[in-house]
């Protein structure tokens, strides 16, 4: 299963807890400040387009841990015999 996250860099306060819990180690602290003066987290697979290069599974541990609701998580739909509509 493939996944993707979006980090709202203005909400993020760079606490680093998402980095601690990501099982794939795909989040790190950005070297660019946000407007509040924090170094927010950033998703390492933001620009990855080839599906087989994506390691994020959309487990959402980062979003569950994030105190600032700064992360939204997307996940590929599991394909079943009954096709679900998006």
């Amino acid at each position: 299963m493939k996944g993707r996250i979006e980090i709202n860099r203005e909400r993020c306060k760079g606490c680093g807890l998402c980095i601690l819990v990501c099982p794939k180690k795909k989040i790190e602290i950005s070297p660019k400040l946000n407007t509040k003066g924090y170094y927010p987290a950033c998703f390492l697979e933001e620009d990855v387009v080839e599906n087989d290069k994506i390691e994020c599974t959309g487990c959402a541990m980062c979003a569950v841990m994030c105190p600032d609701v700064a992360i939204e998580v997307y996940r590929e739909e599991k394909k079943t015999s009954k096709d679900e509509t998006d």
Partner: protein
Amino acid sequence: MKKIFSRPDALKDNPFHYCPGCGHSIIHRLVAEVIDELGIKDRTIGVPPAGCAVLAYNYFDVDMCEAPHGRAAAVATGMKRILKDSVVFTYQGDGDIAAIGTAETIHAANRGERITAIFVNNAVYGMTGGQMAPTTLPGQETTTTPGGRLQVRDGYPLDLSGMLALAAGSVYIERTAVTSPKGIIRTKKAIKKAFETQLEDKGFSLVEVLSPCPTNWKMSPKDSIRWVDEIMTKIFPLKVIKDVA
């Protein structure tokens, strides 16, 4: 790809004022998720504390009524007795619920008030700059316990949840922590059960959540969650303290 995680509906889109790594905003999100899942947003009323979460009404998209410091359980009692079909919760820090609010909390539990208390325990008075709290650990350094909390001068930490379990009117009390995804999921389950206890008209429910406070503990967020897991849980073990629901 389908969006599978985003801000719950019962949480306003306002950025949190809480410190980086603070447990408050995690707990706010969990309460909001539970309100969404139970479908009770338009009949829920919250009572915020005096403390870091005094501005909780900027975040919860439900009716809220301020209370004087410590008195949330009494204000919630007055509201719930009048609005029997509503869901009333208090959201209080350890000072609010277990120091100045001890009497109101114990008596609301004793009367079996159909309210739910969310007790956020960070072992310190956060908003006022890090003074001793009723739950400050022995030896813990705070701005009013220089050298660390000393029993002879400052007493022992108070186990309010344990005391509330003795009150006949309390039916569900659990202590959890928001220091890992597993703990957070467990906390959400506990909060949901507490609200369900109220919906089922069974009695007083409370969830005590051990919550990291990097700023006042003078630790990084990473070290704070370790401090909760390794040190705080020795005095405040994570468990279901009472469940007769």
